[in-house]
């Protein structure tokens, strides 16, 4: 690369970095200015002192954990089977998993409310009572909606993990040694998908923690609506919480990076 091109690349990098860092820096400085005329962490103290912070954060964490479990149970066998037995269906499955990118969350939540807000019937035969009538059933719908929302991330991460290994040959090798499909999946495929699944899980966690639309319309005490409320009423605390949310995301990304580095070894191939 010529020296001029090198400088240009650096210039683009610096502009890009400033584009991301400056708003964050501004928010951080703003969060420190709760007490007029001095810089301090009183906005953070106030934010953490509010019991709603911990309550909503823990509830969101629980919903995120359940979403991850449901997503893994749904996506891993699907992606495994598509890679192994139905590669021709890969395009269809990928299209379906990408739908949450083109269907706005507001459309999704209205669809959910219209469908599950009244008894679910088939040819006039009642199948399910309204699922949005109780807290428990609404939470189930919430987890289902977030599972749909996290499809692109979870499927992409799982599929990438599966493509990085020779699934078919590994499965056949295990079968020839006497393993049934459950053993193949549990002892051979899943352990080798650890990093990919962790990536998908952490992305899902980050999405659920920060999601606002679905949580607000289903009236659940999630962290996203709580944060929005803070922005409206307590600007400094909201800025502090934004920084905390960023910090949590960075921690999650750091964990991914750490694990990926530890496992950055070839799956096959010689020295």
């Amino acid at each position, binding site marked *: 690369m010529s020296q001029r091109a090198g400088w240009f690349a650096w210039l683009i990098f610096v502009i890009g970095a400033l584009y991301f860092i400056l708003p964050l820096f501004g928010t951080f400085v703003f969060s420190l200015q709760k007490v007029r005329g001095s810089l301090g962490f009183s906005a953070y103290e106030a934010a953490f002192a509010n019991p709603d912070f911990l309550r909503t954060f823990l509830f969101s964490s629980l919903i995120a954990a359940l979403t991850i479990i449901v997503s893994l149970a749904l996506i891993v066998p699907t992606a495994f089977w598509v890679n192994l037995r139905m590669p021709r269906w890969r395009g269809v499955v990928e299209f379906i998993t990408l739908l949450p990118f083109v269907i706005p969350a507001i459309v999704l939540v209205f669809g959910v409310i219209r469908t599950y807000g009244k008894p679910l019937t088939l040819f006039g035969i009642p199948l399910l009572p309204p699922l949005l009538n109780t807290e428990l059933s609404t939470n189930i719908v919430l987890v289902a909606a977030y599972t749909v929302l996290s499809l692109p991330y979870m499927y992409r991460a799982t599929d990438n993990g599966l493509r990085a290994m020779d699934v078919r040959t590994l499965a*056949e*090798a295990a079968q020839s*040694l*006497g*393993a049934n499909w459950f053993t193949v999946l549990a*002892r051979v495929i899943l352990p080798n998908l650890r990093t990919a699944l962790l990536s998908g899980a952490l992305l899902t966690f980050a999405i659920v923690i920060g999601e606002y639309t679905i949580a607000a319309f289903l009236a659940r005490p999630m962290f996203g609506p709580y944060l929005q409320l803070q922005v409206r009423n307590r600007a400094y605390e909201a800025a502090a919480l934004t920084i905390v949310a960023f910090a949590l995301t960075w921690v999650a990304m750091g964990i991914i990076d750490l694990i990926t580095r530890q496992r950055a*070894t*070839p*799956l*096959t191939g010689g020295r």
Partner: protein
Amino acid sequence: MTFLALTNVCKVFPNATTPAVDNFNLKVERGEFISFLGPSGCGKTTTLRMVAGFEFPTAGAITIDGKDITGVRPNQRNIGMVFQSYALFPNMTVADNIGFGLKVKGTPKAEIKQRVAEMLTLIKLEQLGGRYPYQLSGGQQQRVALARALAIRPQLLLLDEPLSALDAKIRVSLRNEIRAIQRQLGITTIYVTHDQEEALSLSDRVVVMNAGVIEQIGAPFEVYNFPKTAFVASFVGTLNIFDARVDDPARGVLRLADATILVEPTHLSGLRAGDAVKVAMRPEMIHIESTGAVDENVLTGVVENVAFLGAVARIHLRVGEMTVLVDEFNNPHLAVPAVGSTLTCYFAREGCIVLS
């Protein structure tokens, strides 16, 4: 008594117009080492996969020791398989890989440990049980894959181009090791390869396949020296193949371009004067110095090229419209003919094969 039998086995993949394997019949004795040899897409791997249970035949039957296993699932066949890409489980150590099959079968831990140690000794990797696959060389990984397949005491061992991903030197040493282990254990083995040298050097019998059908089954010596079809003749080893016409079938006389050559009259039985045939001869059966009365066939031409291949020097001799390949075994005193010079070559009638 036949141990493995494939009877009228056919495989047609969905949406395919031609069968991948067509009317495949083979009987294998216990302890035999059989190679499936053929070009890519000839059906050799598909046949192996049907024996393993990863593909099911469209028609026909597969039996092992008299039991029909045609519809049995792969995990219930007790057949060990070694793959081209090693297929070691990356999350397991060498010892865990070798012990995997025994663990799946619920073998007691102490027994697994003992068997793993035996297998590590067999493949001479006693010190590497605690390593992960990525910490091994390609050759070591394939030895571990072999040990893993053998650890379960399979009734049959299948090897699907196991040496293709290795470099030439390791390939030769590992193939000798595979054969030695096979002899030591006496395990019936099927080996798939497109490398004729591998097939010829390893096998008790070679099955040469082309376009889904068996072209010839025979001992390596037989397949090399007495190919039954033009395909076998051209695929196994290097061969000169020329169009000729029968001149006098009773005396074994053929007309080859402007020359007259003699072949064994038995090769021409059933043929009449004027019939077109293909005559083949191995380059190493042709000499640039006459060895006496035996070399009764003579061709004269112009040297087009001389390629030094290490063990032999291959001379390309232009005779009329034909190019005749002549191999001269290397020695320090070999007088390599100059390109453009005129050269006479000689060969015996026994060296000529007339192909159907």
